[in-house]
């Protein structure tokens, strides 16, 4: 019998030893043979007994194994039950724990063993039964029946702290003996992580295993520091310690360029693998090949620390070239390499699958969900397909599809491992987990990789129409169509983004797909590409929303408008403008599936579609391409407000005639009764100016309007700023010729301002008028025609000559206004005590245009020719010195005069030396050069506005003393002689 043979073999072996050992003392014993025989007898019996016991245990063990269904007979698993029977009892020896130096545990155990052997050989056994070094660091355990034996045995053992002896409670003894296998064998093509030294933490791929698994050759990314050899030894040592060179593929050319040389050598023991041998390391195809010790230097990548995508990506960069060369002797690795799909990412996902990462958890259920179609892959019913109807822990119940063939079995139970999810080609699936989670698509192929239970399905995705390979366990049949993610790194679908890289500095694009870790972007040239979030430089949605472009007809189009494409590849399509960047429109059409409906068209290739074109076209028939959107947009509401107030001014180009912005051109953006908001052409600014301080110089596009046209009565408002006061004055004379001037003052349209000339006003007016009129008539020689007229006559031309004034709107508020003005007029007349006091009154308050209206009557006596002249000259630009109080010369003669008043139409009232006044135009005047000790006014330069006494003239400079007795030096040309206030 075999067992007996075993036993006999053992015995024989032991006998052999015994004989060897016994040689020393054999001679002494006279009855050696008999003793030996007897001993052998005992021994044999003893062994036999033990053996039988063993066999019983064995039989029991195998029986148990059989019941648990372990696949191999005599399978190596001791059942938990039999192990349970081995727990220590009180009759077993006790265990003592000793502390020792960490890392010396093994050594100590061997040392103790050696000591015991030595003592046993001397016949003085130490009395300890075992010594254990398990996985507790810095602890060893000694087992013995007696404590003194342990103490004695441990005497004199170095690195052991004898004093730390402690009894292990009997319950904890099994805990001591539990170890977790830490060292794990690695297999070829396993992913491993290097755990020590230069490459600590790096990822490697096992290329071959040696020394029955103790050593392995690992392929990893080199971390070469080429500067090391150039440094002095000391620095190199420090650098080696402190600087960890980055991972970089080995490049022989690079080495050669540094003047170093890599030798071509075979990697020892790897067949015909030619490597670059450099600085005692082997590099093959850029990778480092190095032998490591398994367990200590290299650990397999477990589930807890799987290779990251990034690492794999870095690692994989050059794998294709590696597969070209004859790398492995067998084709295993080659096939694997060639199998790697074209796309790197697919490769990675496959590799991740290959390394078995995350398979474990799947394996438990295989991604099965109730209702799945499954296929039996093991057992008698292999090949059977059916529907999963229940699922619990380890078993599944399947309803066979061809139940009739199986005697109408409604359900069959299988182990989870015996079934596999069945995904037919053509099924529409959804990826439930992994890299492509939530993608959907159609299965175009299913293939089984060798040595794997799981199938890999090739799925054509709905979103990107890319083929991805996914394990079937990660798939689920579903009708759902993924719309993709909607957000990644703060970017969303249809965002206008600035792209970096790609050469052009200002490439922009619109996101048409948000992937798991990348976007698909259509750029301004219509080119679609994938970008990573890092490549994006921010959104431009806001500026896109503000932008305005022009279509082929010159219509303004902006985001949200619907346009139809007039030319190009997209001709005929109608779409909404989703985003725009300069002249490129990113159009969105719901009917397009490609690129999420986005396509790119130049704005000039589009026509604004829809009703908005018409309305806008009607509103601005001559919409100019040059006009800014602002003025346009301003125009529309302005027009809308038009009925509230006549604001024909809005949109017109005007020149500002006074104030800080004097001389600036701008277009009127808005208007109030008193002010207009002018958007300056030359500055990015809008200013509010008084309505009368602007003059219309053109239409809203800047074209100069025909002056005649502006004089048409219908356009009265245009002339608002012009000569309000003259208008009134002219009226009586010229009858209907100039009524518009009177009405032209914008104020007059606002009822409250106009102490109207209608009936009510007349009551007030007449007395004042008659008071005023008398002296005027007396003084002015040339008003003879007036002389005879009485006030009633004067009233007549008013009422008749200003038909506008009779409009109902005027009368409303004339009463208070009139009462206000009446007294002031009178006062002024008293103060000035000159014939045309009323004129002066009007002039000192030029802003109160109302008075113009009033005084129109009083100024009427003026010579008609002068009035005409003044009016004709209205547009003329005045010189800088053309100000009140300036001493002037009338060009006609040498007579000097003082400008007393400047009218709104630029004509001036001058006071002659004989105190008579004249209305003159600026062109008829010239400035009198100031002389020393004259009072002067600075009209230009830094000190403009300063008045003072001219002290002396020095060439082109003049020194003057101002009212504060300060001396100022100004350009002489900026001086104008004035009369002193006194």
């Amino acid at each position, binding site marked *: 019998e075999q067992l007996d043979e075993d036993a006999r073999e053992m015995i024989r072996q032991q006998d052999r030893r015994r004989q060897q050992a016994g040689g020393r003392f054999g001679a002494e014993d006279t009855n050696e043979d008999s003793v030996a025989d007897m001993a052998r007898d005992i021994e044999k019996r*003893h062994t036999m007994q033990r053996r039988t016991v063993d066999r019983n245990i064995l039989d029991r063990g195998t029986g148990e194994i059989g019941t648990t269904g372990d696949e191999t007979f*005599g399978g190596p698993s*001791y059942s938990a039950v039999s192990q349970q029977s081995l727990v220590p009892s009180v009759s077993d020896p006790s265990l003592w724990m000793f502390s020792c130096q960490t890392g010396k545990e093994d050594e100590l155990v061997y040392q103790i063993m050696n000591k015991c052997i030595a003592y046993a*050989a001397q016949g003085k056994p130490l009395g300890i039964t075992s010594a254990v070094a398990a996985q507790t660091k810095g602890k060893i355990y000694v*087992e013995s029946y007696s404590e003194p034996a342990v103490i004695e045995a441990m005497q004199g053992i170095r690195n052991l702290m004898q004093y730390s002896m402690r009894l292990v409670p009997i319950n904890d003894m099994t805990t001591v003996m539990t170890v977790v296998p830490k060292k794990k064998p690695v297999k070829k093509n396993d992913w491993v992580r290097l755990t020590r030294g230069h490459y600590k933490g790096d990822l490697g791929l096992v290329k071959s295993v040696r020394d029955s698994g103790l050593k392995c050759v690992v392929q990893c990314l080199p971390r070469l520091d080429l500067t090391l050899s150039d440094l002095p030894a000391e620095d190199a040592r420090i650098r080696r310690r402190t600087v960890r060179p980055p991972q970089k593929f080995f490049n022989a050319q690079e080495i050669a360029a540094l003047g170093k040389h890599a030798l071509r050598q075979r990697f020892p023991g790897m067949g015909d693998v030619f490597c670059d041998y450099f600085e005692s390391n082997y590099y093959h195809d850029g990778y480092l090949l190095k032998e490591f010790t398994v367990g200590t230097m290299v650990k397999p990548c477990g589930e807890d620390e799987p290779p990251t995508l990034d690492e794999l990506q870095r690692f994989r960069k050059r794998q294709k070239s590696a597969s070209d060369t004859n790398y492995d002797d067998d084709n295993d690795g080659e096939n694997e390499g060639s199998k790697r799909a074209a796309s790197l990412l697919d490769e990675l996902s496959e590799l991740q699958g290959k390394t078995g990462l995350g398979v474990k958890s799947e394996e438990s259920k295989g991604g099965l969900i109730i209702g799945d179609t499954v296929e039996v892959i093991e057992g008698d019913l292999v090949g059977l397909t059916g529907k999963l109807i229940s699922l619990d822990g380890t078993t599944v119940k399947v309803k066979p599809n061809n139940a009739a063939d199986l005697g109408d079995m409604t359900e069959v139970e299988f182990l989870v491992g015996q079934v596999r999810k069945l995904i037919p080609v053509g099924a529409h699936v959804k990826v439930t987990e992994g890299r492509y989670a939530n993608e959907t698509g159609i299965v175009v192929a299913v293939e089984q990789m060798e040595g794997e239970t799981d199938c890999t399905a090739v799925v054509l995705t709905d979103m990107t129409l890319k083929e991805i390979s996914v394990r079937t366990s990660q798939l689920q049949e579903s009708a759902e169509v993924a719309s993709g993610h909607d957000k990644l790194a703060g970017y969303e679908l249809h965002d206008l983004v600035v792209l970096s890289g790609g050469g052009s500095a200002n490439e922009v694009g619109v996101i048409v797909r948000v992937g798991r870790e990348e976007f698909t972007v259509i750029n301004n040239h219509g080119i679609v590409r994938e970008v990573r979030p890092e490549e994006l430089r921010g959104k431009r949605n806001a500026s896109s929303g503000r932008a305005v472009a022009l279509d082929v007809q010159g219509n303004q189009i902006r985001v949200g408008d619907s346009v139809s494409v007039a030319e190009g590849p997209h001709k005929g399509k109608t779409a909404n403008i989703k985003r725009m960047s300069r002249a490129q429109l990113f159009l969105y059409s719901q009917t397009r599936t490609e690129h999420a409906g986005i396509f790119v068209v130049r704005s000039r290739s589009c026509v604004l579609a829809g009703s908005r074109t018409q309305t806008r076209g009607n509103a601005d028939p001559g919409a100019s391409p040059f006009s800014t959107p602002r003025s346009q947009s301003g125009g529309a509401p302005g027009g809308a407000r038009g009925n509230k107030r006549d604001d024909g001014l809005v949109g017109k180009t005007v020149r500002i005639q006074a104030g800080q912005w004097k001389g600036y051109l701008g277009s009127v953006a808005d208007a109030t009764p008193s002010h207009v908001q002018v958007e300056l052409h030359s500055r990015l600014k809008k200013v509010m100016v008084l309505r009368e301080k602007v003059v219309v110089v053109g239409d809203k596009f800047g074209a100069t309007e025909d002056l005649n046209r502006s004089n048409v009565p219908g356009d009265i408002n245009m002339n608002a700023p012009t000569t309000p006061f003259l208008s009134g004055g002219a009226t009586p004379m010229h009858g209907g010729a100039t009524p518009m001037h009177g009405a032209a003052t914008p104020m007059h349209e606002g009822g409250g301002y106009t102490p109207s000339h209608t009936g009510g006003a007349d009551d007030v007016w007449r007395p004042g008028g008659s008071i005023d009129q008398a002296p005027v008539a007396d003084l002015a020689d040339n008003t003879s025609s007036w002389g005879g007229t009485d006030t009633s006559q004067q009233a007549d031309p008013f009422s008749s000559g200003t038909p506008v004034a009779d409009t109902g709107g005027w009368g409303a508020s004339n009463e208070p206004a009139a009462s206000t003005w009446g007294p002031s007029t009178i006062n002024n007349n008293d103060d000035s005590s000159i014939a045309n006091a009323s004129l002066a009154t009007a002039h000192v308050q030029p802003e109160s245009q109302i008075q113009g209206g009033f005084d129109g009557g009083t100024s009427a006596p003026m010579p008609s020719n002068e009035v005409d002249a003044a009016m004709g000259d209205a547009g003329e630009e005045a010189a800088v010195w053309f100000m009140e109080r300036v001493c002037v010369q009338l060009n006609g003669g040498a007579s000097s005069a003082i400008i007393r008043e400047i009218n709104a139409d630029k004509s001036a009232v001058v006071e002659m030396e004989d105190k008579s006044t004249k209305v003159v135009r600026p062109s008829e005047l010239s400035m009198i050069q100031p002389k020393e000790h004259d009072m002067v006014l600075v009209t230009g330069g830094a000190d403009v506005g300063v008045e003072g006494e001219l002290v002396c003239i020095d060439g082109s400079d003049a020194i003057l003393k101002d009212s504060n007795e300060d001396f100022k030096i100004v350009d002489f040309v900026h001086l104008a002689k004035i009369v002193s206030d006194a």
Partner: protein
Amino acid sequence: AKLSIRHSTNSNHHYPSIALLDQRLEDCWLLVKSLLLCSSAHCLDDINMSYPREEEEEEELPQQVADLAQATVPSALRGIRSCKRCGILKTLDQFINEGCENCPFLEMTDNPEKCNLCTTAFFEGQAAIMDPRESWTAKWLRVDSYLPGVYAISVTGQFNRDIEEELENRGCRWRCRAAQN
């Protein structure tokens, strides 16, 4: 006679195996009988008196002590392998030179190839078993039927298919376990 032997041995703790004679009375009895046979004149006295005398003791050494004296310990700290069947630890050289004392049928002696196949470097923990029959550790590790030596607590690995079959035919069990990931 039994009583006296127990009494006499109890006084000397150098012989734990003898101290346990009561547990294996049959052995005791045989031993006593043999002792009586070989030296009837000074039977019991001799056992007591001859203790300190080494030469005399050697031949009467109990089995366990003798086995212990013959035990092998790994001769180096590195390159230690474990027999996949019994889990005994030795260096590869030791395996090649001596084979495995527990598993002679693996025929590792002078067969480096077989040594590589039947031993593994993937093991965890060491237990030096001085007395496999008595030690609980040995029992726990199921090496109680083997010879004294240093054993691994857990052995990772698998036998070749044919070796496995051979062992199965022999009705042997083995200690190595396939690695679990």
